[in-house]
């Protein structure tokens, strides 16, 4: 029986000023970054003001992003965005991202993109998908608005030290299989509470096979099996990504690795070469089925984008399928580049023209349709294939609508086919 710490525990110990911490302990940790959006920040601001907290602990370490119901979808949403904007101005918040401005986009796309998350950081955000930055070797997790308000005042928060599930990745990915299929398969295997309160620590030779976009997608959905965080080791891919975005970033912290005798609650092995494209059926992300194992399901809408799959790699994959093809009759395909940067790059690479020629709606970066906010809400009985992260009852609209979660290539192919299908089923463009 080992006595060492997991990678997550190493980060938490460092931020708690401790040599050693143990699963189950309460610690108070210093935070490197805090995040809020236009849904979760307004209640945090009320709490911050009602409690007379005064000033934020560090104006450079708070990121505020109006992305959920922005560009403002209605008057109430506009008021919420204004409240956040005024607070950002009043507190002189450095990283407030105004709609449309440089660096703006969906929160979990822009934080890594703008070099605001680094290996070894300790990050919280009032958004459940804050766990995304584990891809960079950071500890990051979601909290609520009151936690955000208190942490904005103190720069610290409490954590119960989590145990971990070690996920050993081996092998190589098959064509049309991406990080999305890896995480959906894992959730399908362990269930929506399979990692409740715990860390998912990825390791193994298969890690090198995964791009940063794949890793971001995988960690993004760690919450969908209840995990506190998902985390990848830092390797050449991470360092290349971070050095391009964080000015002066040299090397990973020398303490940032799990101890050789780290204690894990369980160990899972995943052979990447055994993973096929999967689809999560309504109404749980764990309800996965391999493509080809179910009959023809006609669909009304396809969404490509979100904090899960709104990066340039995703746009390129969608365009490769849609180039020279048309969206099926009577189907709406909505493409949402995840940030202004992704949007511009897609524009320069000619991808947006491919989408428009194929008959897609191309939207500004927003979370809108993923949570049934706007820009693609579903009517009663409608079915949608989406590259987003949740397919709960009513998630994207009417409670009798259905969301099927999938990777980008399956979503794009399904838009052309009119039913849930594979790129292999498409005729020559």
């Amino acid at each position, binding site marked *: 029986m080992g006595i060492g710490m997991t990678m997550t525990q190493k980060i938490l110990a460092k931020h708690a000023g401790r040599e050693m911490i143990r699963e*189950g302990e*309460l610690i108070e940790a210093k935070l490197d970054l805090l995040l809020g959006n236009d*849904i*979760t920040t*307004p*209640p945090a601001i*009320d*709490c911050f003001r*009602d*409690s*007379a*907290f005064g000033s934020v602990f560090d104006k450079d370490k708070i990121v505020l992003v109006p992305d*959920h*119901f922005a560009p403002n*979808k*209605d008057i*109430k*949403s506009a008021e*919420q965005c204004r409240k956040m904007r005024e607070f950002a101005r009043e507190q002189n918040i450095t990283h407030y991202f105004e709609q449309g401005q440089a660096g703006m986009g969906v929160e979990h796309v822009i934080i890594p993109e703008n070099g605001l998350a680094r290996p070894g950081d300790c990050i919280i955000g*009032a*958004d*459940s998908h*804050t766990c995304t930055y584990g891809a960079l070797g950071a500890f990051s997790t*979601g*909290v*609520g*608005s*009151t*936690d955000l*308000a*208190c942490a904005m*005042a*103190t720069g610290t928060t*409490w954590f*119960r030290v989590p145990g971990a599930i070690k996920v050993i990745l081996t092998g190589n990915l098959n064509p049309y299989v991406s990080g999305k299929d890896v995480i959906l398969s894992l959730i399908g295997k362990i269930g*929506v*509470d399979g990692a*409740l*309160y715990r860390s998912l620590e990825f390791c193994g030779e298969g890690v090198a096979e995964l791009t940063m976009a794949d890793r971001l997608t995988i960690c993004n959905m760690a919450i969908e099996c*209840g995990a*506190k965080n998902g985390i990848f080791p830092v390797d050449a891919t991470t360092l290349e990504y971070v050095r391009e975005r964080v000015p002066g970033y040299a090397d990973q912290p020398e303490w940032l690795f799990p101890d050789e005798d780290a204690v894990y609650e369980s160990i899972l092995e995943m052979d990447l070469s055994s993973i096929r494209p999967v689809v999560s059926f309504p109404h*749980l992300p764990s309800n996965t089925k391999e493509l080809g194992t179910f009959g023809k399901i006609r669909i009304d809408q396809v969404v490509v984008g979100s904090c899960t799959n709104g990066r340039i790699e995703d746009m390129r994959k969608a365009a490769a399928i849609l180039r020279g093809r048309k969206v099926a009759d009577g189907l709406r395909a909505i493409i949402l580049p995840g940030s202004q940067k992704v949007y511009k790059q897609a524009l320069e690479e000619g991808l947006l023209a491919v989408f428009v020629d194929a008959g897609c709606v191309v939207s500004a970066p927003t979370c809108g349709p993923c*949570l*049934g*906010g706007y820009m693609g*809400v579903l009517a009663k009985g409608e079915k949608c294939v989406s590259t987003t992260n*949740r397919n*709960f*009852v*009513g*998630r994207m609209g009417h*409670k009798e609508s259905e969301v099927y979660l999938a990777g980008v290539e399956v979503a794009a192919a399904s838009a052309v086919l009119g039913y849930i299908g594979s790129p292999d089923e498409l005729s020559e463009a």
Partner: protein
Amino acid sequence: MKITGRAIKYGANVDTDVIIPARYLNTSDKNELAKHCMEDLDPDFVNRVKPGDIIVAGPNFGCGSSREHAPVAIKASGIACVIAPSFARIFYRNSINTGLAILECEEAYKDICDGDELEIDFSSGIITDHTAHVVFRANAFPEFIAEIIEADGLVEYTRKKLGK
């Protein structure tokens, strides 16, 4: 502290999207949110809930979105406590922080039926089902959570820490 109320029962994995659908998140007014609590899971909830009622649900209650609007809506609807075998971790934090009482108890979920008259003694964690004449013991809160509850929530705890 003791409370009594009627059980309202739900299954496993009750997510925050059904507790309060995102279409209502353009406000954080608790009374507005309460009007739509549980709407996509149980449209009749808002009509039948009475102040003091107790939700008894399956594992992983409150999974999904971090929206604090979920425990706020439940509390504002009149629910006095939620009992479940386990809670999603963000919902757990949010409930402690916003003062919604929650208790972890697997047996209570298995045995309590919708409509049963319940009594909860928070100091001992004892749940009594007066309809079925059964008694359950909920998991005790970890010490530090009890401290936050004792300090009257995270805000007061933080104010004390800041010396305000």
